[in-house]
């Protein structure tokens, strides 16, 4: 920005005056103008400054900034909103919808919020690491309250801004304490993972995951790529309900993944955004993490309550670091705090209180489990219905069973970019360009329409 042009608003020929003299003149004018803070005389001050000598640069310092493209996931909802077509369907972002395609606030959440308001709790700053009651219940939920890692106080838990914020804190820890260490991420993975590691300056590489031929897991590729990575890499694993594919390893495969990770001294890093949401059972969905913890491995787990408690906008989650000793855990926690302080000082209370009220209260906790089973159940039933519609309408013999085999909110349809675009442009079905659809946004009533769209895009578009 070489040329910062100064121009003088008033008629005063002050260009030739020194700064000192300029200031003297404006000072003289200033002292004669009474400044009244109750508003009415503010306009006097304003007009005074307009005739004063120094005006700001004419050219924006930011004139060369380019328009960034819309977020590939969150941008889908924005595009959907703008569409006026009556059959439009939003299968973009992973946010649960009821059969009527309405957002859903869980009953237990409403109850918890009412309790909180009745109690009249204050709004003081949380400690940097977040709400203690929340940190306790979230670790217990993840590992099991009687798990050795909890009993031995070997878990450093810090409240984070949902999954994203928790991942970012972990990435910042990795960058600072494991300089040069890379993180292995699945191919494909959630679109924002790469952004998080890029911004945190943590190098990443991919391990094979999705096999388009089988529309299933490329297990050999996965093992081979994890094995080939430099000793001591971090391996990002989706605890359950892999996003975007919906394809999870079997328990036997998890054991083998743990074997190779231990062999190579890698550090497992779980992203758990769907605990309870995938199978409907909190414990079952935690089994991969608990399998690794049971082997005495050190590991990281990022948690999110966006989906399973429907607390999307409250931004509530946690980063857990399981260490070999309680002392290491205490030190790691202190360093996570040091990374959070210059990011946002301390995390927001509201969502944390909701979670600790629900999980900490046996009655609400049971009610939550029921609501979660209901949500997971609805998704399983639309999977079935979509599958049935596809089989009924598609006479090509294509195997659509991957829809039933995949788990969680998302299905990887196998549609390519052009086909996905056809889904949107011709059928007003909004999804991400990688072929991912969110079944949480699908109603039974629209399964047939969606089946038509998928069959058309798959067969008629290359």
């Amino acid at each position: 920005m070489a040329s910062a042009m100064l121009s003088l608003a008033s008629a005063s020929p002050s260009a030739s005056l020194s700064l000192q003299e300029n200031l003297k003149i404006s000072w003289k004018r200033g002292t004669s103008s009474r400044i009244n803070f109750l508003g009415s005389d503010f306009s006097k001050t304003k007009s005074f400054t307009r005739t004063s000598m120094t005006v700001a640069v004419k050219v924006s310092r930011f004139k060369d900034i380019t328009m960034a493209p819309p977020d590939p996931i969150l941008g889908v909802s924005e595009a959907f909103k703008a569409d006026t077509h009556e059959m439009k369907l939003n299968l973009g972002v992973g946010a649960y919808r009821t059969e009527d395609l309405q957002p859903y606030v869980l009953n237990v959440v409403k109850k918890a919020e009412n309790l909180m308001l009745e109690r009249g709790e204050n709004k003081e700053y949380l400690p940097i690491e977040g709400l203690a009651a929340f940190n306790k219940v979230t670790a217990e939920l993840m590992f099991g309250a009687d798990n050795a890692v909890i009993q031995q106080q070997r878990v450093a838990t810090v409240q984070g801004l949902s999954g994203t914020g928790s991942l970012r804190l972990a990435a910042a820890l990795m960058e600072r304490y494991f300089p040069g260490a890379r993180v292995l991420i699945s191919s494909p993975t959630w679109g924002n993972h790469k952004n998080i590691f890029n911004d945190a300056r943590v190098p990443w590489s991919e391990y094979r995951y999705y096999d388009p031929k089988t529309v299933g897991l490329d297990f050999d590729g996965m093992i081979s790529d994890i094995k080939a990575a430099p000793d001591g890499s971090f391996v990002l694993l989706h605890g359950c309900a892999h996003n975007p594919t919906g394809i999870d390893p079997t328990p036997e495969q998890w054991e083998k993944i743990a074997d190779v990770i231990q062999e190579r001294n890698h550090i497992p890093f779980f992203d758990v955004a769907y605990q309870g949401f995938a199978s409907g059972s909190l414990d079952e969905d935690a089994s991969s993490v608990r399998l690794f913890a049971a082997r005495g491995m050190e590991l990281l787990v990022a948690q999110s309550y966006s989906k399973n408690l429907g607390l999307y906008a409250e931004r509530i989650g946690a980063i857990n670091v399981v260490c070999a000793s309680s002392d290491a855990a205490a030190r790691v926690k202190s360093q996570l705090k040091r990374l959070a302080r210059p990011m946002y000082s301390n995390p927001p209370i509201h969502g944390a209180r909701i979670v600790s009220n629900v999980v900490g209260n046996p009655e609400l906790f049971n009610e939550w489990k029921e609501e979660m089973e209901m949500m997971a159940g609805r998704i399983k039933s639309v999977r079935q219905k979509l599958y049935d519609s596809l089989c009924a309408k598609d006479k090509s013999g294509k195997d659509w069973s991957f829809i039933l085999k995949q788990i969680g909110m998302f299905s990887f349809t196998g549609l390519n970019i052009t086909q996905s675009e056809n889904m949107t442009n011709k059928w007003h079905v909004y999804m991400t360009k990688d072929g991912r659809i969110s079944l949480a946004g699908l109603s039974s009533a629209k399964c047939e329409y969606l089946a038509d769209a998928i069959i058309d895009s798959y067969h008629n578009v290359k």
Partner: protein
Amino acid sequence: MHSGVASPADRRLSALIRHLEGASNAMDSDTITASPTSGFPGARNSVFEHVVRAPEDPILGVTVAYNKDSSPLKLNLGVGAYRTEEGKPLVLNVVRRAEQMLLNDSSRVKEYLPIVGLADFNKLSAKLILGADSPAIQENRVTTVQCLSGTGSLRVGGEFLARHYHQRTIYIPLPTWGNHPKVFTIAGLSVKTYRYYDPVTRGLNFQGLLEDLGSAPSGAIVLLHACAHNPTGVDPTPQQWEQIRQLIRSKALLPFFDSAYQGFASGNLDADAHSVRLFVADGGECFVAQSYAKNMGLYGERVGALSIVCKSADVASRVESQLKLVIRPMYSNPPIHGASIVATILKDRNMFQEWTIELKAMADRIINMRQQLFDALRSRGTPGDWSHIIKQIGMFTFTGLNSEQVAFITKEYHIYMTSDGRISMAGLSSRTVPHLADAIHAAVTRVV
């Protein structure tokens, strides 16, 4: 990308070597190596062995220490959180009302906010700080994004500047809020200081300020406290603000305002926004980080906003799109609760009025505490000129006590403050003023 440094095996080996080498190594005082018998049987050494324990945050750590103290006389004048005359945290009535309204509204959902946050909140926040009739707003030259209170707004603004602005140096006042240098450094800016506080007058070192900003490279970023400077409570006069503005514009420096106390300093929202509006009125560009932690008592909700005033609507729109790229990999989108409370209050005429009244009451109580403390020191004949207590503005007073005197006060009188001698007047009450006055008197007469 970093080039590979020590492998995990090397790191473990170094940790072991340090342990075996013994106490001569400075790291040992920080690194406590786990004994072989601790932890899970058969567990390997921790990959976190080399991670040392971080010290407590100097400001928030004061509260940690306070909480550990069992003395009935203890007083927390550390962190800047408002306390009532009874020493209790305060949730504003109007905030409770807004929360009840939100809860009663059955149409409300918890869907993700846009990356830039709640639209209403953003518009209302811009109006609050810039003035409802601000030409910058009318001309669509302002982009406002909801952020995590003041800290989050500063961090997002800093990251944006580190990526997109040609001058990566930011000048911060000496002294300033302890978290400022950390936020900007980690955001990727290089931090320099400009003279601000004069310990002799306990007022503004205006000459030093002008000199230092005058010698800053063209285009450098300048952090300005919009009002109620933290930690000193010393603000420029309106005339001084005008001079600062002219200097900044003449050198094409980029002003970045931190506005954490609008309405809290003088009791008047417009008066406390004067400095910001002065700059915006000349048509130039600036950044403003706003916080609702203090003025709406929403501390833990983390509500704030970053406004960037640009030369044109087109630039503002492009800037906004780039801000989203900073935010998305940090936390995706901001929390809804606090922003909804703020929007509810700001958009309702009655609630807005109610808020200004409650806000003025808080500001007045603090001004009252200043007067009481000043009178108490005078009546004790405490040596020194304590008039700065009533001249300084906002939540904090820079007492002028040195760190030995502060340590003495904490130890003997169980009064907690930051080691720079900053006290939060918001933490005082009529009942506790005498105790503090005694402590200051003792420190000043017995500890040098």
